[in-house]
């Protein structure tokens, strides 16, 4: 049984223009010992997936269907009281805007120590020591002094590390991290991701890592799920998704990540409008942008298992790959184009 198992999650949002169908049947598992990347363009529904699971949706958004089981218990239908007890203890969150997530009125050390006392019953002195150790673990030098600082006194990178210390202090089984390193210096990003990875490997905890950086995914994740217009359109291991993407949207992403800006490629008109969530196209949501779109794409899309847990939501999931010989030659071509 997976640690976290999201099944057919659907979320509607009331907007002035009508009901936005923001999540349209998201299914995703996260196992112990793994970091699962969740990628996709802005507005695809990545953050909404996280917030639905955590019970943190705003007033206008509502889960209309689906479950998110954590260790077998559904988080969606759980009482907010129980969910709150779980958050900060077994399930922790790291958000993108760290200063906004910290309490401006309590020192960061006190915030970390208090959550440790509340959820793990640590004594006052032990909690304080734990907090300082947690700050040191996230690479903060002179942690005893830094523990006395308030959120507004910290740089963005420092505040993000504090938030990670806060998330890790109670040794959660699952961490949901929404763009945790976006906007940080690369040298700091590397420290933080190394830390997450080491924690997962050592303790068996798991991370759902929302990011738009494919380099982060390729270097730190075990598996990856690709989102488009509120659906997971493809998921698989890093090797499967980067080596042999099957959904046209994933193919475009992976190709773009290796873009060498070859100017001989013909430039077409840019038709990348985001899909209108109030009035989604029937069938495949990607069909207005898809180079392979055919009539059948306006009918419900099947999720196709293309091998070894690798799944794609498409009527034509990677035509080339039906014939192993052709697939190999496509890969060889990619390697040649990208160079060694």
């Amino acid at each position, binding site marked *: 049984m997976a640690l976290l198992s999201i099944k057919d999650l659907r979320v509607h949002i009331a907007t002035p223009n009508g009901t936005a169908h923001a999540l349209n049947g998201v299914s995703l598992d996260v196992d112990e010992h793994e970091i699962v990347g969740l990628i996709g363009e802005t507005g695809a529904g990545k953050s909404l997936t996280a917030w639905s699971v955590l019970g943190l949706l705003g007033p206008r958004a509502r889960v209309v269907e689906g479950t998110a089981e954590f260790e077998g218990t559904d988080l969606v239908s759980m009482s907010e009281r129980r969910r709150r007890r779980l958050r900060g203890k077994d399930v922790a969150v790291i958000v993108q805007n760290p200063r906004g997530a910290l309490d401006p009125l309590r020192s960061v050390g006190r915030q970390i120590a208090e959550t440790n006392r509340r959820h793990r019953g640590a004594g006052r002195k032990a909690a304080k020591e734990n907090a300082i150790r947690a700050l040191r673990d996230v690479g903060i030098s002179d942690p005893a002094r830094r523990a006395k600082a308030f959120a507004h006194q910290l740089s963005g990178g420092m505040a993000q590390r504090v938030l990670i210390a806060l998330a890790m202090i109670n040794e959660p089984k699952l961490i949901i991290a929404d763009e945790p390193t976006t906007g940080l210096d690369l040298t700091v990003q*590397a420290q933080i991701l190394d830390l997450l990875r080491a924690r997962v490997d050592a303790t068996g905890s798991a991370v759902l890592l929302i990011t738009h950086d494919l*380099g982060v995914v*390729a*270097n730190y994740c075990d598996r990856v799920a690709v989102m488009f217009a509120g659906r997971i359109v493809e998921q698989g291991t890093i090797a499967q998704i980067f080596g042999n993407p099957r959904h046209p949207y994933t193919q475009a992403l992976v190709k773009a*990540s290796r873009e060498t800006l070859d*100017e001989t490629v013909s430039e077409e008109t840019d038709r990348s*409008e985001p899909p209108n969530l109030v009035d989604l196209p029937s069938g495949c949501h990607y069909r207005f942008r898809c180079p392979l779109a055919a009539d059948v794409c306006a009918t419900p899309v099947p999720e196709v298992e293309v091998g070894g847990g690798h799944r794609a939501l498409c009527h034509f999931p990677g035509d080339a790959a039906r014939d192993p010989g052709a697939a190999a030659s496509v890969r060889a071509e990619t390697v040649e184009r990208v160079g060694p």
Partner: protein
Amino acid sequence: MSEHIEARGIVKTFSVRGSRAPVRAVNGVDIVIPRGRTLGLVGESGSGKSTVGRCLLRLLEPTEGTVRHGEHDVLAMKPETLRRHRARAAMVFQDPYESLNPRMRIRSVVEEPLMLHTDLEPSARRRRAAELMRLVRLEEFHLDRFPHELSGGQLQRIGIARALATDPEFLVLDEPTSSLDLSVRAGVLRLLKRLQRELGITFLFISHDLTTVAAMSDEVAVMYLGTVIEKGPAAEVLGNPQHPYSQALLSAALSVDPEGRRVRHVLEGETPSPVDLPPGCPLASRCPLVRNDCRLAVPPLFEVSEGHGAACVRVPEGTNVLPAVGPVPIVTAS
């Protein structure tokens, strides 16, 4: 020499409320770009890249230094000369949503610089707007839309069209693709390259993304805490970094095709604040190779090879290589 843009000794300080000491955002930077070429400016957030870009366009008044654009002394220009100069040089901003007025139709966005800096008639402005849309590969009907109806990539093309409206010879591109989704980023970059080739424009390309900078730049300058700590031909600086900060930065870059294990150079701690800068090398508080003479004065760029310099006192004796930590195992490839 056919240097097109040449700035020397740029210093920019900001006074901040509640603090007597000013923020020293840029601390003595030289920028030289030949006509039709691209200088990539990299560095972490807060290192002073945007401030340098704005000083070159005189959107900010530098506290010290000189800026030349061709034969023009930009900082000596009187208001009317400067207004006309604005047609020659423009800026493209990072966030296309934030930099465009949401209630303005795209047509007004694109035509605005023509109204401000040229004497074109309305009919000529309309023709130019249509021409600009073709130039950035968008269909003309987008002119009648509002910003929220376009994708990020399309809006950034609008930002570029607007910057190109007056046919400028120099563009400061401030993180033009950083807020864009990967699926549209390459298209915008390719567009910029073509425009440069067709129109012969000089670029200052600001980014914290090393892959993008590598793809776009002829030369690269790396900034840290308001100073350029390394610069040279793009392949040299990105492929053979000599300053300890550049070494750490490049070793932390993540390839989408990791090769199993990688060697890493680690810098502990955080960048200090640009208020009350200590004298000497800006990296001294974090550098594992620091020694006494690092703290005496800001090191000049020492030549590594022709056109490639690094501002580290250890460069001349070749003891400037950071110790490697690792190799760090890559866990994926399952």
